[in-house]
């Protein structure tokens, strides 16, 4: 597809789908899923386990073990499909709801919990995992991702003859985030420098209580065209389509063809966070409609229809999921308690003397206090 075609508002790829809600594979003129059914079973496994992690964390919050949890229920295909397109030199920059992406990038889900339990800021080694820190100020991370992409250009990781030498960044954000100045500036910088970055917007229809219509009157993916790069909308509950589209966009980026905006059209089936009460602002019927489009159900239906998975496979996965859940429950309560005294050492690479003595005073005070008890 030419850029003109891709940026035309009447382009036929308005909604890219390769697996419909009933679990039937459908054709798309421009995109196809190139993996095998076994690959899809691996995706299904990740989606199921991601959903389980999410469910357990939600339950842990209900039990008071976490202060907060932002559930990703319903967004499994968008997250797992895109994560499966990530290559070995790519960098992944999440927002705060990308538990499924984290899982695929090899982050121990226990490390996800620390942030929400209040035992840590962000626990995982973002460089080793190529999965950056969660980001809580809406939209800010899109600029960081563009900067990483600019760094990759300077590292000689873009447009090399051998595709194995190329890398790109992919950054996650929500539909609400598209209203932030930072996100639009990220579009501008990325376009201006043809930076190798994929903007992966999970349009889950809501920004807390605000419907997407408040942020944009037209489909979000069309935003990109006005900045001079392609935007596409993909069925975010179709893991095949998400992976195919993300693969294509990352390839473009790595090849030096610049940024792409992917709007993964999906739905936040749960609350915004465990503190939220969606009944205040949305119809129950809406959830019902989206349940019919469940990303896991449709993939299961499809893989069962092809015989790629069977009852035994599902039972084994259920076991694996139970073990994981068990590990999370046990691990959560035994996450190391943070020490305030340790926090000073993380403020500066070189702790200034004044701050060191503030820490020492705190320590002495805390100890004197302990002794006095």
């Amino acid at each position, binding site marked *: 597809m030419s850029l003109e075609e891709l940026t035309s508002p009447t382009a036929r790829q308005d909604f890219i789908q390769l697996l419909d809600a009933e679990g039937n594979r459908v054709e798309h003129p421009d995109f196809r899923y190139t993996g095998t059914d076994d690959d899809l079973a691996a995706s299904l496994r990740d989606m199921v386990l991601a959903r389980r992690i999410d469910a357990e964390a939600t339950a842990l919050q209900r039990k008071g073990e976490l*202060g907060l949890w932002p559930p990703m229920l319903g967004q499994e295909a968008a997250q797992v499909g895109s994560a499966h397109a990530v290559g070995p030199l790519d960098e992944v920059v999440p927002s705060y709801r990308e538990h499924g992406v984290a899982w695929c990038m090899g982050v121990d889900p226990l490390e996800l919990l620390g942030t929400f339990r*209040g*035992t840590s800021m962000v626990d995982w080694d973002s460089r080793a995992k190529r999965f950056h820190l969660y980001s*809580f100020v809406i939209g800010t991370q899109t600029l960081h991702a563009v900067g990483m992409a600019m760094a990759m250009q300077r590292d000689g990781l873009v447009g090399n003859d051998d595709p194995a030498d190329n890398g790109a960044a992919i950054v996650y954000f929500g539909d609400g985030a598209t*209203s932030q100045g930072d996100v639009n500036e990220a579009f501008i910088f990325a376009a201006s420098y043809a930076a190798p970055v994929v903007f992966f917007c999970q349009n889950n229809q809501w920004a807390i*209580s605000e419907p997407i219509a408040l942020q944009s009157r037209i489909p979000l993916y069309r935003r990109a065209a006005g900045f001079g790069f392609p935007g596409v909308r993909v069925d975010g509950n179709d893991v095949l389509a998400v992976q195919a589209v993300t693969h294509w966009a990352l390839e473009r980026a790595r090849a030096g063809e610049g940024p792409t905006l992917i709007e993964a059209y999906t739905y936040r089936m749960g609350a915004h966070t465990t503190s939220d009460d969606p009944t205040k602002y949305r119809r129950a019927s809406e959830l019902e409609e989206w349940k019919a489009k469940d990303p896991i159900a449709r993939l299961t239906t499809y893989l069962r229809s092809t015989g790629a998975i069977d009852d035994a496979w599902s039972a084994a996965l259920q076991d694996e999921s139970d073990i994981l859940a068990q590990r999370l429950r046990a691990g959560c309560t035994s996450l190391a308690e943070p020490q305030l005294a340790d*926090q000073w050492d993380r403020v500066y690479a070189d702790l200034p003397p004044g701050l060191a003595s503030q820490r020492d005073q*705190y320590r002495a005070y*805390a100890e004197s*206090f302990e002794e006095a008890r």
Partner: protein
Amino acid sequence: MSTMTMAKAINAGLRRALAADPKVLLAGEDIGKLGGVFRVTEHLQSEFGADRVIDSPLAESGIVGTALGMALRGYRPVVEIQFDGFVYPAFDQIVSQVSRMHFRSHGRLSVPMVIRIPYGGGIGAIEHHSESPEAYFAHTPGLRVVTPSTPSDAYWMIQQAIAADDPVIFLEPKRRYHEKGEVDPEAQPLPLHQARVVKTGQDATLLCYGPMVRTGVEAAIAAAEEGRDLEVIDLRTLSPLDDDTILTSVARTGRAIVVHEAAGSGGIGAEIAARIQERCFYALQAPVLRVTGYDIPYPPSRTEDGFLPDLDRVLDAVDRSLAY
């Protein structure tokens, strides 16, 4: 007279302001149907309509910048920033535009705008949800910065802030949202820019505001048991500071301790200490001490009890002050 939480008191104050003046508007993220994440604007959209209680796109600079435009045409916008840590995207609009429009226009234009910010820690939140940004605003000429500590003050001060012709940063101590107090809608409130002596005392002056007032009062009660008579002042206004109330008290007690959650370096306590020693130099029997958040970013919430000033740290400072 009725008993209500601070969150409900602000809600009631907003309702009264909306009812009294058609020019009063509310804007912010999720303030409509949801009533805000703290429910401070609950039911107001259904009562006053979506044109007056406006759900805004997710962009703080946009919220503040458009509110400024509305103010320039005679409206009195009250915008909500969802959490303290999300005010910074609007910082440019606040410090370079909102705070200066009156000045830039040689006094011709005014910006009767209120920026409500739930602030402070102590609620076990994730990062960016426990910030105390007041010093940034207090250092900015043209802004007024106030913070209530009780439901009654919250009820009155929000109305006074809306009635003020200057832009007001209205800091709401979120961890006190659900504490209850008496609110008398017939009372004669204290002026917006006056501190309140919460408890008189002779031995030292505790200066606190917002979430720390309760801590200060508790400290005074505990100190009383040890025979120490502390005066507790609720600053209420952080910019301009109510010098009279502060200096009169310290001139008498000779000792002062400022308490706040924000990082100590460059915080409100620094300005207060600097003023007191400038103007009560001979009266001071001890240096002005500060009990504040440490000079580190807000730490993981399971360490916040140690980070935040508490009874013990205040009493420790009282001891140190009295030891001079």
